[in-house]
């Protein structure tokens, strides 16, 4: 008699309730390939996916090059346990929006750099929600820049907002709150953290549409559960022992609350602080890298500590783009548009219980992320330029 392991139990249970999760017509129309993908996904405990853009643009030389390892102690330690792709190439447009949209759609994007157009074609969020029937609380994009408000769904009319992700923009929320504090000339200015918190809550109550929330209970009222979750993230942030002040730190706290409250299966966490490099301070850029390393490590710790994620999650960490090389004509680390190797050649670190430890020199591409995540989620995504990373799909 077949031994009923925990994994086998989960697999059988998953299959037995599949018809209740998936819309009937969709279940009936699954192709053979979809069924194989779904079976593989069911065998795999890593049925949640978190994509982390280690971002704002960072070069190999400050991360996984020998001279850069000192900046990323957490990732270096994680690499031993995960699978490391030494070469992850961004062959697309070297802007934050297009690069991230390429990661999410599996196709190289050439839309407006500043988010005035949604990604072309469906995003991974839409494939996932449409095929799985997952609800709106099961796919989230926690992003930094305001332009990323349109990152939750693409322009394909067969998909779109009904299947998109909830996009939250913590930095935008913070920005509006801080600007309010400054405008009002409150005592202590932005150093008064309680004042900042009050304004943060105020923005949540009054202006959430402008800062990216897409979850509405009815009409224009922010869903109470979502609001409470976000407020908890804000309070943690304001009262954090290290007195965090950056957009990325708030991104982390809000992501963590979303994970604890809603346990979504698919999350994009878009870090951004290292784009401070545009200010022209190499030391601030290095500090931002180290901070993002710490936040990524804390995110992995949350995965390990959170029973909804532990042993079920694949974490894919990659810079959305690099930055210009020191010998480049543009102005070195300050920019990321030259298209030289330093801009395009990045890395990818995969973590997860089902991820075998190892590394490869085989080049993969940013568009391969969506293809890989789709398989991990048991979703069939058609017409992708990217290919699944077989190293992670054993």
């Amino acid at each position, binding site marked *: 008699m077949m031994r009923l392991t925990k994994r086998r139990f989960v697999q059988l249970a998953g299959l037995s309730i599949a018809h209740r999760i998936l819309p009937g017509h969709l279940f009936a129309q699954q192709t053979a390939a979809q069924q194989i993908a779904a079976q593989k996904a069911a065998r795999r405990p890593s049925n949640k996916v978190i994509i982390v853009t280690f971002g704002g643009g960072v070069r190999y030389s400050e991360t996984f090059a020998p001279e850069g390892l000192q900046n990323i102690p957490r990732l270096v330690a994680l690499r031993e346990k995960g699978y490391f792709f030494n070469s992850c190439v961004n062959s697309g447009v070297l802007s934050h929006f297009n690069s991230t949209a390429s990661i999410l759609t599996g196709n190289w994007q*050439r839309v407006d750099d500043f988010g005035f157009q949604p990604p072309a074609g469906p995003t991974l969020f839409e494939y996932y929600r449409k095929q799985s029937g997952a609800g709106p609380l099961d796919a989230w994009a926690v992003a930094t820049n305001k332009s990323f408000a349109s990152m939750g769904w693409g322009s394909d009319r067969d998909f779109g907002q009904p299947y998109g992700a909830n996009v939250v923009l913590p930095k935008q929320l913070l920005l509006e709150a801080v600007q309010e504090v400054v405008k009002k000339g409150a005592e202590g200015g932005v150093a008064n953290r309680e004042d900042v918190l009050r304004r943060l809550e105020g923005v949540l109550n009054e202006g959430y549409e402008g800062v990216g929330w897409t979850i509405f209970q009815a009409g224009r009222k922010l869903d109470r559960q979502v609001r409470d979750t976000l407020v908890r993230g804000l309070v943690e942030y304001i009262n954090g022992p290290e007195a965090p002040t950056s957009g990325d730190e708030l991104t982390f706290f809000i992501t963590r609350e979303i994970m604890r409250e809603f346990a979504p299966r698919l999350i994009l966490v878009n870090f951004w602080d290292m784009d401070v490099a545009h200010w022209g301070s190499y030391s601030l850029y290095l500090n931002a890298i180290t901070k993002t390393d710490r936040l990524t490590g804390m995110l992995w710790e949350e995965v390990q500590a959170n029973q909804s994620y532990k042993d079920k999650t694949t974490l894919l960490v990659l810079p959305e783009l690099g930055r210009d090389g020191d010998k480049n004509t543009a102005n*070195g680390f300050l920019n990321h548009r030259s298209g030289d190797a330093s801009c395009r050649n990045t890395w990818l670190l995969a973590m997860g219980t089902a991820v075998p430890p190892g590394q490869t020199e085989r080049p993969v591409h940013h568009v391969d992320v969506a293809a890989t995540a789709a398989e991990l989620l048991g979703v069939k995504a058609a017409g992708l330029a990217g290919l699944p990373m077989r190293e992670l799909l054993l």
Partner: protein
Amino acid sequence: MPANTPKVSAAMQALIDKGLLDGLPRSFGAFCFDQMKDWDLLFPAERSYFERLFGLLDRSSGPVVERLFQPLRELEPKMGMNEKTWPRGQFTLEQVDFLNRNRYYPEWRAAVAQVFAQLDPALDAEAARNGHARLAIVIAPAQLPTDPGRMWTRFQGRGKRVEISGPESAEEFLPLLLTGEEQSRKAPTIGQLFAAGKKGGAYTSWIVEAGAGVSRLGSDSGGAADYGVVKCSYESLAQYRKRLMKDVQSVVDAQETPGPRQLSARLKQMKILTSEGDLARDPILAEFARAILLSGNGTLLINNTFVEWATVQSVRRARPSVTVVGFGIRNKVKPFSSLLIYADQEATNPIPSQMDTLGSYVDLEVFYQYIWQEFEKYAEYRNNTAYLFVGEGMEEMLAMAPPDFPLMTAAGPLTLPAVFGHLKDWLSV
């Protein structure tokens, strides 16, 4: 020719009248046209470059020019360039955006690089024939928490460390280095001497600095261009910087500009006022200051970023013969500063500003390299420029120069007036 033909020099106009611009590939022509459209605001070196570039194309035979541009000409239609996407003579952010998002962008860059790879040797040879000794002095502030052994780490194995016998009074370090005399003597600086000499003239000698101390040195100094020395100081531009930050924030707050492209057009109107700095007196330098401060990087916010970018741009555009670069110490970034890009940090946060000496040290190690590289990109500087990297008050300096630069063979320790003497000899002033 497009209706908005720029007003250029007679020599350039003669080449334009021959139809030289019309025969160029669309993107190449548009770029050149755009660069020349504010001819009156170009530095002499820029005007000279365009005259030499088009002169060379004019002298070259038709088939040679045809071959030169053929790859670019073949690529442009594939990229979708036409009169609608690339109107003749227009090269705005729309075109930059078009290029960035085009799937053939890497090929386009390669084709343009190939054009210049063939043109540059001839243009460089011309520049080298008219070459003369040049000097760049890069000064680090006294507060850096380091010693000569850990300075200029990116130049290890290059140049020569020169031992210095410094003055008893630390305040006299820079006056002695740059004038050969104590400050009270008000002797002319090395830059002033060059600018007043036979190879000098307007825009040939520059000071770019975080503070204003170097600009105050020398004789009869005060104006932005006394002796023709250009003085570009972050500190001296404080009033203009603060107004720019306020104005930009107002534009953003009022949401009058839907995106960066429209914002860029607004920024071009924010010119320096006469009351905001001496650079306003010279239209070319006034536009230079505006462009530096509103270039999109951190030049408004961080003193050393301003110094690096202004230096790089002065080299790229004006090709000075003598450049004195003075870095400073930047302040620590206050909480939430990354969110308040255009806000006055002093006003938004009552926490007193603190110097970030370690951060500044890290920043400068990179900037030394970037500045040196920028100089060395141009034929005017290669093989005839002496670079002195100096830490104010330090007992050593780093010299990178051709073998005939006197400091490369001089035995130390040297007094600062002796160093100044060698600099004068090098420049023949």
